[in-house]
């Protein structure tokens, strides 16, 4: 019996449109948010409390998140968002906002 394979060019798009995919991504996102909180510095705990999973995004709603992430002359760069993604077992790829 011969089987012919025809790749579906819309495969990834169709998978992404599935509700199961969205559900899976939300679970992964919660894991990433937890990993970010785990690696974040803790002085007052404010930054950690402001890191939340929001659908399929992780948001750091501390207005000084950039100081924590990239540091400054007076602060070392802790990089919790970048390190959190890696700590969650994912690969960090930085892309600019579209």
């Amino acid at each position: 019996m011969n089987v012919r394979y025809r790749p579906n060019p819309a495969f990834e798009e169709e998978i992404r449109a599935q509700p199961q995919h969205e559900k899976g991504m939300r679970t992964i996102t919660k894991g990433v948010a937890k990993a970010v909180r785990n690696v974040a510095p803790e002085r007052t705990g404010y930054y950690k409390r402001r890191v939340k999973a929001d659908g399929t995004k992780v948001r750091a709603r501390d207005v000084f998140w950039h100081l924590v992430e990239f540091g400054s002359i007076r602060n070392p760069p802790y990089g919790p968002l970048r390190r959190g993604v890696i700590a969650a077992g994912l690969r960090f790829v930085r892309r600019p906002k579209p």
Partner: protein
Amino acid sequence: MPLLDAEKIVGDYLKDQPAVEALKARVVSKTPSTLDLPWVRITLLTPTNVTGTTRVEWLMAYYLQFDCYAGRDGGRPEAFALAAAVRSALVEMPTVELPDAVATDAAFPSMPKEPDPDIERERYVIDGELWMHPKP
């Protein structure tokens, strides 16, 4: 001891680079006490094992942040020149012999311009990934 002191290895390497020396830039692991001349601050964000399970912790991806600061009067052009010098040096790293390590590859996920929010000072932030293993 497979886990390398990446900050020291890369710092020592950058200190010897003519392009970095030409800018009179200092290579440091924390902010220097004087801010007149440009400087590069190296911070290890995380090392990740990339060897697999056969020889764990041998080949590692060292994820580093390089803060390339301009000196007092250099402004953005000096910060950019320093960032470009650092990137060029890191790209060449796998081709040179290092004292304690072998660098196999370098990549730069990003290099945003992030002026320092604490003082008015131009800065480029290089996200750098260096793959290194100890000398066999």
